[in-house]
């Protein structure tokens, strides 16, 4: 069984992002980029399925600019067998990505497609679900445990206040939650060997899809700065301020 893992290139989680002064987006100049952490969990899960003998091949896929090859190489170093880049200079948005991936899935016919539940930049939490609809596949989102049972996959989902267990017929879609696994460090020899693994580049046209944006971002604003605090003289003054200014007690 093939496992396909879509991965997104995002700003590294350690970077303190800065909003561009004109509010058009986040400043990406000279900013360290990484594999979206939820996608990395997806790669780890796929590699574990392969190590356990449940999967035969792990394919990492990215949709975006040439630079995404960097993140695909990371996935190859982590244990993916090959990588595919669907290259576009368009800004990538969930629907376009889902369309491109659905077109690729029609060719690859992966038994399992493992998405990160969301990317840490856009926080949309949409791509996996849109893909499932377009590819007409059942989905188990926010997975904290994935077990292959014959031609079915059992997924334990993290839902509000508890866990839900679902069983899906494969081919199926899974999206990863934080607790699914803890990704390994790529070993240094594997990083070096990753260069030799195949990385194919397609255009959306090759796949017959349109990935042009369907949504326009009007404004991006940083969180409001916290105003400086004050020191009050007495408990009475504090209670007064909480009551009459902050209005948090009555």
């Amino acid at each position, binding site marked *: 069984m093939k496992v396909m893992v879509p991965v997104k290139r995002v700003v590294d989680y350690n970077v303190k992002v800065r909003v561009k002064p004109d509010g058009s987006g986040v400043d990406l100049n000279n900013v360290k980029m990484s594999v979206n952490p939820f996608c990395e969990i997806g790669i780890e899960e796929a590699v574990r399925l392969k190590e356990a003998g449940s999967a035969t091949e792990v394919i990492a896929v990215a949709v975006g600019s040439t630079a995404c090859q960097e993140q695909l190489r*990371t996935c190859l170093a982590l244990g993916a067998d090959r990588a595919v880049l669907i290259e576009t200079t368009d800004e990538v948005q969930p629907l376009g990505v889902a369309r491109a991936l659905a077109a690729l899935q029609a060719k690859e016919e992966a038994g399992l497609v493992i998405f990160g539940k969301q990317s840490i930049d856009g926080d949309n939490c949409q791509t996996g679900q849109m893909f499932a609809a377009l590819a007409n596949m059942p989905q188990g989102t926010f997975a904290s445990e994935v077990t292959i049972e014959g031609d079915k996959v059992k997924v334990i989902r993290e839902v509000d206040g508890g866990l839900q267990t679902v069983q899906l017929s494969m081919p199926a879609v899974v999206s990863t939650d934080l607790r699914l696994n803890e990704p390994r460090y*790529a*070993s*240094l*020899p594997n990083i*070096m060997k990753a*260069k030799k693994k195949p990385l194919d580049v397609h255009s959306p046209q090759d796949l017959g899809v349109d990935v042009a944006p369907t949504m326009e971002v009007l404004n991006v604003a940083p969180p409001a700065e916290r105003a400086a605090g004050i020191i009050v003289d007495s408990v009475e003054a504090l209670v007064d301020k909480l009551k009459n200014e902050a209005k948090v007690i009555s």
Partner: protein
Amino acid sequence: MALDDSTMDQLLDTVRKFVRNRLVPLEEQVSMEDHMPAEVVQEMRELGLFGLTVPPEFGGLGLSTEEECRVVLELGYTSPVFRSVFGTNNGIGSQGLVIDGTDEQKAKYLPKMATGEIIGSFALTEPDAGSDAGSVTTTAVLDGDSYLLNGTKRYITNAPEAQLFTVFARTDPTTKGSKGVSAFLVDADLPGITLGKSNRKMGQQGGHVCDVIFDDCRVPRDAIIGGQANLNRGFLTAMKTLDRGRLHIAALAVGCSERLIEEALTYAMERKQFNQPIAEFQLVQAMLADSRTESYAGRTMVMDAAKRRDAGEPVTTLASCCKLFATEMVGRVADRAVQIHGGAGYMEEYPVARFYRDVRLFRIYEGTSQIQQTLIAKNMVRDAR
């Protein structure tokens, strides 16, 4: 450089993540317990850290000097004791073998050194032979088809953990200097080897150093690195590993200085006296600026010398310059970091006190600062003649 930029970036990125997410949080525990957790050593093995400099045909990464130094700069961000776990395998423990070993010796030891299955230890220093390493008195006497080793080695890093010793012993009793000395590959489980008690050290707790005593330890005749052809030529082999080893230590010292500067800066910006962060005081700023400047100079020196070595230039003098400057520099940086922390710098709650002790070693081993000065000046005079 052998590796393309993006592969190198990924390699460094992975080491950085491992260092910061995995090792830094363990620093205090390892130091307090004077114990290196076995699972961390295993993770180092899996990551490939034991084989950084071992050639790829023996399962290592075969990094160039520059690449190795860049990795070591990252490793310097955490307690140097972590690096000492695999330091010998990448340096003096394996490089002599890589350069001068016979094919059988390489095939027997290098793959296991690259994976870390074998931890190597380098046994040169003796109670009466330190800086004057050529005066070793441990003897190796041919007895039938084997040598009998007798003598005591002192301050041997990783001896309690090692599976393999590189032992320098006198094979020509008629000599007193380095000319009559051979380098032996000695399996640590051979009869006739005993270990002294672990020394109680100033710093780098978690790593262990002790005497290694050879008492009629019988080693095969072909245990000399390079075989009988290299009889009495052990120091020539050692010399070939020195430049790279010194650059490695210099890079480590620079890495530590960068960590110390980060600690000092963070503290200086948070700590307030006289109603302002101490980082606003010009006298504190002077300490920060001097540290930053010297650290940058050290980094630049190491990278320059490493590149030159990779390009085939002789760098013996430069490597000594780097080792001398970087290790003395990190001493000053550590001292200032403690000073910037004030009383807190004297306390174990902050890492700078530990680093202050840890980095003191760099000026002593792999050739003291005075020995480096002597070498640099000797080469200057020789080259000017």
